[in-house]
């Protein structure tokens, strides 16, 4: 070997050191950005838990709202949120998945489906209060559902549907076309291809999108205020036409009161809301993994 090529590490130039430094700076910046997110979340959690853990007991979970802080509880709001969550999921999920299947597997390429597609993408970005106004005008007034659980759930369904549709479409599109061809090639009908191959493969992605959308719905207040969720309520809903309140509203109601005790209750309410969100995500992960292992 001739000595034309320098050994590794030999003659490292200033330029070389400079570009390495740039890389190092970028890595630190990215790490710092991550830390900002994680740390602020941690601070928030610690603060909320410190404030709220004292109020979080069995009485809190089983009592209704009250003007006396020591007697006030989260029961009505938790029940309302769970009702809204299940109703919204059972309305929005089938409709959205069906719409996504139609758009991906059945609809043609024409201008109508392009127009629908554009509209759905835009709807996903419409502020939630606008859905609230629609819900008030259509579900509460026109259909006469009044200020009820079903009005709230229908309104939130409209809110989350574009998000679920888009997520489902992406999951369906991610199923390799070779799988479709294989199934069609064996003499499967379109419905058989969709129901037996495409949906099972797309389901994990569809569920992730659904859960993210529902998590957003659980935290919504504005559209529910529009359709008449009440801040102070002393019973749980028994049916679709009953009035209701939800966790974020109850929390807001407590925070806006002057007494410090209510603020502790608000913190406890936040813990309950976070627990509900986390358990939803856990359910989603379990369902998703079950689908994956079947494959």
């Amino acid at each position, binding site marked *: 070997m001739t000595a034309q090529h320098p050994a590794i590490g030999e003659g490292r130039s200033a330029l070389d050191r400079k570009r390495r430094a740039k890389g190092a700076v970028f890595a630190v910046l990215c790490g710092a950005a991550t830390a900002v997110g994680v740390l602020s979340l941690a601070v928030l959690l610690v603060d909320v838990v410190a404030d709220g853990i004292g109020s979080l007991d069995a009485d809190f979970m089983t009592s209704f709202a009250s003007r006396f802080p020591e007697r006030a509880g989260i029961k009505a709001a938790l029940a309302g949120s769970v009702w809204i969550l299940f109703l919204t999921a059972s309305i929005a999920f089938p409709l959205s998945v069906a719409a996504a299947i139609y758009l991906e597997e059945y609809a*043609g*390429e024409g201008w109508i489906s392009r127009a629908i597609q554009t509209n759905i993408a835009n709807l996903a970005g419409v502020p939630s209060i606008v859905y609230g106004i629609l819900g008030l005008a259509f579900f509460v007034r026109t259909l006469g559902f009044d200020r009820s659980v079903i009005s709230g759930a229908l309104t939130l369904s409209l809110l989350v549907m574009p998000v679920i549709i888009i997520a489902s479409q992406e999951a369906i599109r991610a199923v*390799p076309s*070779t*799988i*479709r*061809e*294989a*199934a*069609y*090639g*064996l*003499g*499967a*009908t379109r419905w*058989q291809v969709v129901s*037996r*191959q495409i949906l099972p*493969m797309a389901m994990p992605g569809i569920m992730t999108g659904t859960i993210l959308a529902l998590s957003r719905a659980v935290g919504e207040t504005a559209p529910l205020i529009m359709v008449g969720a009440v801040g102070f309520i002393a019973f749980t809903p028994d049916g679709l036409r009953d009035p209701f309140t939800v966790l974020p509203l109850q929390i807001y109601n407590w925070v806006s009161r002057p007494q410090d005790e209510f603020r502790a209750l608000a913190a406890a309410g936040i813990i309950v809301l976070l627990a509900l969100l986390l358990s939803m995500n856990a359910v989603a992960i379990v369902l998703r993994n079950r689908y994956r292992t079947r*494959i």
Partner: protein
Amino acid sequence: MATTYDVRLGPEGAALEAKNVSVFYGDKQAIDTVSLAVPKKQVVALIGPSGCGKSTLLRCFNRMNDLVKGARVEGDVEFRGQNLYDPNIDPVEVRRRIGMVFQKPNPFPKSIYDNVAFGPRINRFEGNLDDLVETSLRQAALWDEVNDRLGESAYALSGGQQQRLCIARTLAVKPELVLMDEPASALDPIATQRIEELIYELKEEYTIVIVTHNMQQAARISDYTAFLYMGKLIEYGPTDTIFTNPREERTEAYVTGRFG
């Protein structure tokens, strides 16, 4: 431009016959008035350079082109006395009767057993499914390698095994004709050899049309070879003739490796 056509059908007749088939993708013509008859229980190879339309032509034979947006087929494809493109023919039925094996192994993300059983199940097979799965896997020369792990994922198999599984899956719906679109192009030489041996065995019972890039492969396994160039059928005849004594200059140029 004339086509040199030297295929005489035996007493068994044609399994499938294309008559003046043209295919368009939007404004672009991919196949230009191709006519050819596939003799029963023979292997016909479609060869030609990339983009010459051989896969497109193959996909006309089981109406797979229906799934491509903007594709339009003109002409007739006759199968058992019926034109497959007749308006009252159901493409789903066509694809069940005329099976297809694809370029890349494409097993379903299911168990080995469920892959083979998928076709019979969707076609309401009434009979012993276990037996059918075993027979199909034996026909595809895969049974001995997988009989103790039918419940495992098909993705755990090697590429060559996956392709034989796809062949077993196709055979399980008992097609009359099997179309193969470069079935060995994604496989190593050993796996390719196994597929070729398998095709040779399947000829006993099935008519096979195979698209291949590999001219040695066409020469080894086929009885008749069709050479396509730029969407046109240039020459169609016995494989020996095509490879040793082609009558068209372009065929000779292609099979001797001067272009393509």
